[in-house]
């Protein structure tokens, strides 16, 4: 009785997942379609006559952009961790006065639209000559991740047993020593979660890329695809091939770290 019901539920779940993931399938399908078949009506539902010409075009034109995004993403992760981890430690375990005020500011910071930040950064970078620089983009992208990172790390670190910290103090280690040799290793999973999100947000960012790095030599992949679409309304197979390649970090993330992703979403939302 329950066996058949469970089977029905599995079937229904498969159907729902298929509907939900249809656009993703469609990206892959179009990326494998020949240019001559793109305008066919109705479009073929299966890549019956597959070609890699889209991928060839994508790799020949978009490789530098992928590299740029990788660099910017890693830079964003490092900057985010460097700013957020020590602060979270102080807020969670060092009895910092003004902790609540700081938390409030961080929550408000998450509500500021990226368009507004982009305008402010543009005005400042123009003065400093930092437009079209990778550093400028790293800094701007990190503003998406830093408040989230502090709130998540702080929530995690305040759960570290105080006995451990007191033991470290009795052994004569100072705050820095405690931070490096106790707090950081114990927080490995939450540091990983934060890094994954910082990387992914930076990798996916379009607004900062399109405003602060629109005419640089090194542009990130999101802007690469956007410009590709602008120049190229016929080669949707190449556009979609680039899209598939640009989605690889997300795919890896999903496979390797699914548990952290779910944890990150809920920790960012239902703060505890």
């Amino acid at each position, binding site marked *: 009785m329950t066996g058949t019901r*469970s*089977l029905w*539920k*599995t079937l229904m*779940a498969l159907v729902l997942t298929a509907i*939900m*993931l249809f*656009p*993703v399938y*469609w990206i892959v399908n179009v990326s494998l379609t020949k240019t001559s078949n793109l305008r*066919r*009506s*109705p*479009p073929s539902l299966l890549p019956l006559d597959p070609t890699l010409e889209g991928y060839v075009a994508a790799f020949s034109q978009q490789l530098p952009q992928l590299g740029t995004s990788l660099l910017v993403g890693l830079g964003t992760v490092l900057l985010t961790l460097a700013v957020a981890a*020590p*602060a979270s430690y*102080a807020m969670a375990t060092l009895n910092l*006065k003004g902790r*609540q005020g700081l938390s*409030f500011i961080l929550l408000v*910071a998450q*509500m*500021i*639209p990226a*368009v*507004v*930040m*982009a*305008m*402010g*950064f543009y005005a*400042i970078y*123009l*003065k400093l000559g930092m437009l079209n620089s990778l550093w400028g983009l790293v*800094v701007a992208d990190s503003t998406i991740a830093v408040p989230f990172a*502090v709130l998540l790390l702080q929530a995690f670190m*305040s759960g570290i047993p*105080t006995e451990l910290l007191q033991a470290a103090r009795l052994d004569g280690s*100072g*705050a820095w020593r405690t*931070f490096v040799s106790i707090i950081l290793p114990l927080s490995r999973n939450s540091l990983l979660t934060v890094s994954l999100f910082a990387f*992914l947000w930076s990798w*996916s960012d*379009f*607004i900062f890329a*399109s405003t602060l790095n*629109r005419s640089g030599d090194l542009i990130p992949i*999101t802007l690469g695809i*956007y410009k590709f*679409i602008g120049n190229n309304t016929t080669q949707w197979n190449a*556009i*979609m091939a680039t*899209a598939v390649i640009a*989605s690889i970090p997300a795919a890896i993330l*999903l496979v390797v770290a*699914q548990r952290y992703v779910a944890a990150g979403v809920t920790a960012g*939302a*239902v*703060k*505890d």
Partner: protein
Amino acid sequence: MTTTPAPVRTRAGDRAAPAAQPRQSRRRPNDNSQWVAWAFVTPLVLYLLIFYAFPLYRNIELSLHDYTPRAFVRGNAQFVGFQNYVEIFGSSSFAKAATNTALFTIGSIAFQYAAGLALAVFFRANFKLSAVLRGLFLIPWLLPMIVSASAWAWMFNSDNGIINAALRVVGLDPVNWLTSPDVALTSVIIANIWLGIPFNLVILYSGLQNIPADYYEAASLDGANAWQQFWRLTFPLLKPVSAITLLLGLIYTLKVVDLIWIMTAGGPGDTSTTFATWSYREAFGAGNPDFSPAAAVGNLLIVVALVFGLIYLQMQRKLEKQ
């Protein structure tokens, strides 16, 4: 929600009653440790001042001056007070952007939430592949926005899009999804609902995990059917999580630029322009940037987001007290 009394007093006092803190700190030579704590926080404070406060200040300044591109470089723009704001409120785009922003956020959130909740309840049941398939539902949320937006743009394409091809098969007339003033907004809302379902699913699902299974056992012993269990048990108990999900969705949806920009650029005309895309268009969308009105629209958006954000904080505080 793990604010159960902590075993060690320092931390419990720190969390529950800040009033107890000074006494705690007097017991130990804490003057020194405050310095240490602030040393660890200093990078963050500097970061917030330089990379949040200063851009925001610049933005307010932009909105109160008349910045032409030339004045922008020279830095000698004329102070005009609230004139940019007056112009925005009087602009023909204002009413359209306001309506669109409301429709976009409310439409997106209502459907994302309903779909997310239905799926969360569905996936809570124990069946084969449940966890794997639920994981796959995260994909749309993890994809770069440019990828999903261009996929939807191609699917909605009037001549070669799969959606119109499907309509033809059923015998319906094709629709100019992205180029017709009547449906452009609906098209971007559909894409945004799709993007938002995973987020709603994950949070609501984790909310469901916190409802004890005994409640359901008791309810089914009392003879409640699945529908009654949902309306009498699940839905009321999920209310706090639902509220947070909806408010976060609201704050997030207000900010959306890239999706709309990539799919329709706010057009045709103003028909899919929201406050966020309006601001983006003024500042970066055309050849000649018009930063002052763009900044004014942006600041307006911050105020709206803050109002809802404060509601969110208020609710969170209430939750913590429970």
